[in-house]
C-alpha cells in the first residue's frame, strides 16, 4: 500500500496532475489495463469516513487517493459528502477535455442538517464521450460492469496552515522583494 512499493529516492512523492489522474490512472482502470505503478487502491463504494481512509487509501502528505465506483449515494457511517457545486473540466496537454473534476464537502450527521467539516473530496470521472464508444456494443456492456463508471478520488482536509515548503515565496519574502524595487542601488549579493 502507498508508495512503499515504488522504489524512488527520498524526495519523490505522489503528486499527480489532474491530467495524470484521469489519463493514466482512471482511463487505464476503466479500460482494464494494468496501471504501473499500481499504487491507488480500489475502495469500491468506499463507505468510509474521510478520517478512516488512512491505511486504506494511498496516502501522500495530507492527501488520500483511491478508486471508487461512481455513485449518487455518498453516505458514510458518520456523515455524507455533499457536492460543492463546482465542476471543472480536466484537459490534457493538447487542451482536449478528458474528464471532469467535481468537488464535495463532508458533513457530519444526516442531511440536510449535517455539520460542515473541512474535508474535501475531488472526484475525477472520465468525460461522457469516452463511454460513447461502448454504447455501440450495448448488449455486451450490459452484461458486464461498466468500467467507465469508475472514478478516482482525492480527499484532503482543508487546512489553513500555510506550510512553507519552500516552493513558494513566503509572505515576507514578497515584501522584501517589493522593497527591493525601491532600492536605488541594487548590488548583486
Amino acid at each position: 500500500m502507498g508508495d512503499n512499493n515504488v522504489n524512488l529516492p527520498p524526495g519523490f512523492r505522489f503528486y499527480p496532475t489532474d491530467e495524470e489522474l484521469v489519463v493514466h490512472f482512471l482511463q487505464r482502470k476503466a479500460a482494464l489495463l494494468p496501471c504501473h505503478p499500481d499504487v491507488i487502491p480500489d475502495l469500491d463504494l468506499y463507505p468510509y469516513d474521510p478520517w478512516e481512509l488512512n491505511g486504506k487509501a494511498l496516502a501522500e502528505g495530507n492527501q488520500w487517493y483511491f478508486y471508487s465506483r461512481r455513485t449518487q449515494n455518498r453516505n458514510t457511517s458518520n456523515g455524507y459528502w455533499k457536492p460543492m457545486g463546482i465542476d471543472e473540466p480536466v484537459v490534457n496537454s493538447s487542451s482536449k477535455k478528458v474528464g471532469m473534476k467535481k468537488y464535495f464537502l463532508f458533513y457530519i450527521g444526516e442531511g440536510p442538517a449535517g455539520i460542515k467539516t473541512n474535508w474535501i473530496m475531488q472526484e475525477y470521472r472520465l468525460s461522457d464521450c469516452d463511454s460513447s464508444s461502448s454504447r455501440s456494443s450495448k448488449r455486451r456492456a450490459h452484461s458486464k460492469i461498466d468500467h467507465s463508471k469508475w472514478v478516482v478520488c482525492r480527499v484532503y482536509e482543508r487546512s489553513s496552515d500555510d506550510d512553507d515548503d519552500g516552493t513558494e515565496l513566503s509572505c515576507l519574502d514578497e515584501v522584501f522583494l517589493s522593497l527591493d524595487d525601491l532600492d536605488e542601488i541594487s548590488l548583486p549579493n
Partner: protein
Amino acid sequence: MPENMSISVNGQSQVPPGFRFHPTEEELLQYYLRKKVSYEKIDLDVIRDVDLNKLEPWDIQERCKIGTTPQNDWYFFSHKDKKYPTGTRTNRATAAGFWKATGRDKVIYSNCRRIGMRKTLVFYKGRAPHGQKSDWIMHEYRLDDNIVETNVSNAMGEGTQEEGWVVCRIFKKKNHHKTLDSPISSSLTAETRNLMFSSSNEGALEQILEYMGRNCKEDSEANNGTRFLRPIETAISSGYPDSFMKLPSLESPNSTSSQNCYQPMMTGNEGSITNQLSGDPNSVYHNDSGLTNWAALDRLVASQLNGQTETSRQLACFNDHNMAYCSPTDHHDLQLPALRSSSISSGRSYHGTHQDYNSEIDLWSFTRSSSSSLSSSDPLCHVVNASV
C-alpha cells in the same frame, strides 16, 4: 515491479506517472546536501551540479529536468567559490544577469534541531544597478553543521558559510495563482481558491500596508501615542509605494552592527539564545491560518513601530514555551532580530516610549545601550545591545 520504477535523469527510464521530485527542505539538506558534501554516492543522479555563473535560469530549467513530467521547480547543486573582487560576497552573475539576495535568511529545523539556512534570491536581467527583476526565484540551502552556539554572529547566518556546496531550488514566482499542476478555472469560487492556495500572492504588500494602517490607527486611538505614529499614518494614507520609502528600512543597513547587537550575557543560556535570535519567533503561531499570519505580521510590524506591550507578551511567550520555536512550521521569514536590527537608527526615538507605555519589557529593550536597567529577573536580560 520495483525494477520498473527506477528513474534515470538522462537514461531511458523515467519517473513513474504521478510521481514528482518534491523534496522537503529537510530532505534536501539532510539527505542530498549532506551526502554531497561528504562525497557519498547519491543513488540516482536526481540533483545535478550546475555552475551558476554559466547557466541562466532558463538553461537550468532545461538541464535539471527529471524525467519527462512537467515540473514547477528545478534542483541543483552549486559550489560557491567565486567572489566579487571587492569583498566576500558570492558572485552569482551570469552572462545575462545576476542573482540578488532578498530578505533575510531562514533557519531550517529538523526535529527541533537547526540544520541549515535558506537564502532567497531573485534573478535580475542586465547588470547592477540597472538590473531588471525577473520572476525567477532561487532558494539556496546551506548546511549548518558547526553551529557555534556561542557565536551569535554565526547564528545570524551572516558573513559565514560563503564557500562550499549548496543545494538550490529555482522556480518562477507565481503571479496569478496559476499552477502547472492544477489549473483552476474561473468557475472556482474565491473561497476554494483560497483554500487551495493559501500562500502569498501579489497583493501581499498591499495587505500588509492595509493591516498596518488599520492597526496603527487603532493603536493611536488606544494609546494616544500619535506623535510616534504620524509618520507611518502619513506614509500609508498618502499612498503606496512612494511614501513607503518613509518607513524605516526593514533591511539592516549594516550587518556588522546587527551582529554586535546580540551578545549573550548569561553563558548558561547560549542554546536558547541562539534559538531565540536566529529562530523564527513566529513559529509560536504554528496553528495560525494564512489570515492570522497577516495578523501576526501585523502585530509585529505594529510593535516594531511603536514598541509596546503587545510585544512583551509575545516575547514572554517565547520564554515560557521554549518548545514553541522548535516548531518546524515556519510560516514566513519574519525574524525578530531582522526587524529589530533594521531599526537601530530609528530606535533611539522610541526609547522615550518605553516609559510612556509603562511596560515592563518591550521590544526596544533590545536596543537600549545600557544593560544596567535590566535586572536578572528580566527574561530578556541575556540579550542586550552593545552597539547602540
